[in-house]
């Protein structure tokens, strides 16, 4: 993926119950030229997705009220109109089993907190097909940054 993914929706769904992280992610999304649609819990994220599949990507926190990020992804991967939306799953947990479970559920990027803004920018660029995907992933001092090929894309 070396060029902008022409035609991909310009909106990004952001779900996190933490207002600090939600605002930070929204700012990174806007700086990347996309429009964030923010919600505070998993149930609200699913409600929006049921009515609207027009998102270029989604960024979910793992641990949220009502519904965890990984459960939203499982739901999305069973719905034809949602299954191709790439998802970044953020979490404070770093255990390898959780990362494995996240990828099995259909997460595209596993992003441990705290992440740097550059790491999030890189992840978004990769998912949305911008040239940033050709750069080396930014280094981090702890945790694990991991990604797999977005669903349905080469």
């Amino acid at each position, binding site marked *: 993926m070396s060029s902008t993914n022409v035609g991909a929706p310009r909106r990004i769904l952001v779900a996190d119950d*933490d*207002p600090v992280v939600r605002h930070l992610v929204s*700012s990174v999304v806007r700086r990347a030229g996309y429009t964030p649609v923010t919600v505070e819990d998993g149930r609200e994220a699913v409600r929006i997705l049921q009515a609207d599949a027009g998102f270029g990507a989604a960024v979910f926190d793992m641990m949220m009220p009502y519904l965890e990020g990984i459960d939203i992804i499982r739901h999305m991967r069973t719905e034809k109109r949602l299954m191709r939306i790439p998802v970044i799953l953020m979490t404070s947990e770093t255990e390898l089993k959780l990362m494995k479970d996240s990828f099995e559920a259909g997460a595209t990027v596993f992003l441990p907190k*705290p992440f740097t803004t550059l790491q999030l920018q890189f992840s978004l660029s990769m998912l949305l097909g911008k040239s940033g995907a050709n750069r080396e992933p930014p280094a981090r001092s702890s945790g694990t940054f991991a990604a797999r090929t977005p669903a349905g894309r080469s």
Partner: protein
Amino acid sequence: MSGRIEVADHTGVETCAVTRTSALDAAGEAVDSVVLLSLEEAQVEGEPDLVVELIDLYAEDTPRRLDAIRSALAARDLAALRRAAHALKGSSASLGARQVMMLCEKLEQSSGLQGGEMLLTCLEREYARVRLAFADERGRRLRGA
């Protein structure tokens, strides 16, 4: 995580002994200024100072999180304690409040409620330091210094 936190109760006096191993912690900074600086990468041109906005959100949200931890301890509700500590851990880590983050981690990982009150005391003390550091940072940024 490089720091190790030991909480002890010596001679009836509550003590928060934090073993600090990084250069940052040794300097006793409540907030990692490098983390705050890195947040500027997300600043959208022409919009209000992002770091100030994040500090304000943290200041608004944290008392609620501390209340939740306090209530969970009072109710001896371990699941609620872990949820509340986890939530505060995330926002604190994002803004470089490392000692608060580590104390929350300690609370989150506690297998029982014993020692929780003392951890909460440590957490409140550390948050007071963070609040002062953020007030300074906020003022500096608003003055354009």
